[in-house]
């Protein structure tokens, strides 16, 4: 595939980008943040879910816009930072990169495929965890454990939950 045909494919994908109503763009991230701060209090077993990350991955994949992806990632990350006791920017940088890369993938692949979504969510969860660990280690000097096996398992669980969530969020898309 030469550059011109690749560019053509990208343009076709970009034209397929999903659109959402304004209230969806406001309510879904807010709901994800509320989920993150409220639900694990009563259902501790749901503490493994990183709902803001799933929302970032979904919007980035579906918008197929790198700028949109990094914007939603940065905003969600900073909001999550604000509600945790980490310094501002830890989740921000992390989710900005996730959003950017997810949007980059979305431009090139058919992200309506459920299996592909599963794989991408799993991959981005791992990427998110590893990047956070590196940043915490390098920038904050924290001696956190590198729990790759745990992350693999949690990544799989998040991916499975993500498939259902994405299916639900697909219904909130504006019909063109």
């Amino acid at each position: 595939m030469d550059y011109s045909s690749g560019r053509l494919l990208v343009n076709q994908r970009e034209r397929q980008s999903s659109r959402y109503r304004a209230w969806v763009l406001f309510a879904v991230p807010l709901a994800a943040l509320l989920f993150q701060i409220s639900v694990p209090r009563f259902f501790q077993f749901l503490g493994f879910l990183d709902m803001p990350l799933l929302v970032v991955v979904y919007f980035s994949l579906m918008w197929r816009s790198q700028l949109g992806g990094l914007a939603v990632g940065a905003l969600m990350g900073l909001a999550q930072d604000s509600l945790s006791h980490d310094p501002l920017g830890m989740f921000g940088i992390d989710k900005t990169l996730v959003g950017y890369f997810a949007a980059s993938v979305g431009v090139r692949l058919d992200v309506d495929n459920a299996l592909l979504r599963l794989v991408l969510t799993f991959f981005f969860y791992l990427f998110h965890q590893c990047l956070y660990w590196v940043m915490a280690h390098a920038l904050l000097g924290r001696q956190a454990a590198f729990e790759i096996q745990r992350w693999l398992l949690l990544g799989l669980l998040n991916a499975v939950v993500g498939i259902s969530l994405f299916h639900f969020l697909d219904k909130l898309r504006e019909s063109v």
Partner: protein
Amino acid sequence: MESFLNRYRNITVLLLVIFAQLILLAVQVKNDQDVRVIRIWTVTAVTPVARVLEAVRGSSVGLVRNYFMLHDADAENRRLREEVGRLKIQNIFLQNQLNTADRAKALEVFQAKTPSKMVAATVIGTGASTGAKVVLVDAGSASGVERGMAVVTPDGIVGKVIASYPTASEVLLVTDTEFAAGVISQKSGVRGTLKGQGTPTCKVDYVPLEEKIEVGEMLYTSGDDRIFPRGFPAGVVKVVHDSQPFKEILVEPSGLQHGLDDVLIVVGGVHQEIPPVPPANQPVYIAPLPPADQKTPAAESDAGAGAPNKAAAESGTEADRLRAVYKSVGDAQNHTFGEGLPGSKPPDFTKLPAGPVPPPPAGAGAHPNPAPANGAPNTPPRPATAAPAGTAAPPNPAPPGSVPKALPKPATPAPAGTAAPAKQPDAQRKANQAAGAGPGGPGR
């Protein structure tokens, strides 16, 4: 140039955003200060919704949970379902109100008893990072809450405020790895530093090996950290190990034992004395003393016996009673137990005083006649049954050379060639009991 910028626009924006956040991060880490504006915006945007959700959840959970209870009641009382349901829903509502009032009252009583000035708050959420030991409470700087204030419940310390916003505050729980507080043990006054581990238990650091601290001992805040006033319960010691260079002590924090719904934030701390006894959290029932004139069955059975038996009964055990009986026999025949060579004449144990005789042990392998405690020969007082010659020995054989007096007639003599019964037949035992004898044989 324009096409170049157009081509690398996205990556340029990405780098700018990342760079800006790195600067933000570096400023915070270097100055050890927070960028409060962003946090205030987010918390102010999120916490009102969280509070509404919490209120809806609190009322709906109670209603739904109790609805199912009502559903069971409906099954039992179908005819009265509507009427009972309506009344029960009213009752549930009032019960919820009452529970809330009870909780508030408990906090109020604790507030009144504690000299420190405190503000009540409700937990409305947890920290956003996964696995965080941080909670959000609905009292903020508008209520006088500031960063660094202690958070407690009547059960003990809960954590400390790490950020205060107009409508809410962030509380770092005692179980967080970044939490630390000065504590002192109740009994020995050993000081240490309570630290969270990210698990339900905390550890106490910096306790020298020579200090003595016991499992079950209560720890209180020492006031050294200038966050927690002295005298608040911190936890109970669960594990103590000697380690290097300090003791390894694990503590169960007492403030988190009964869940975390309502808390008190100490806005004006006052040091208190360490209480001399740990707070009692479980009532213990102690039965009243028995009446003074009540007799035990064993004492009643000994009531008709002679003086030795009476003394033995007073001493309590079966072995003591038996010892007293044998000693009285020896005394009557001028025999001193423990003297005399083997083969010398033993006391005549056929002249036992009247009274109950202990039954032989039922175990086949066990020796049927326990020796008296003073070393007297192992001689039975009398056989329970007489076996004809040629049969196996009964469990209580007569001693060689002794002539049994007033031997009871066996109720059912064992036929020749058969083993003697190890136990008395029921009929004979009942007859003996009816005649006033003890369970081991007929009375004299």
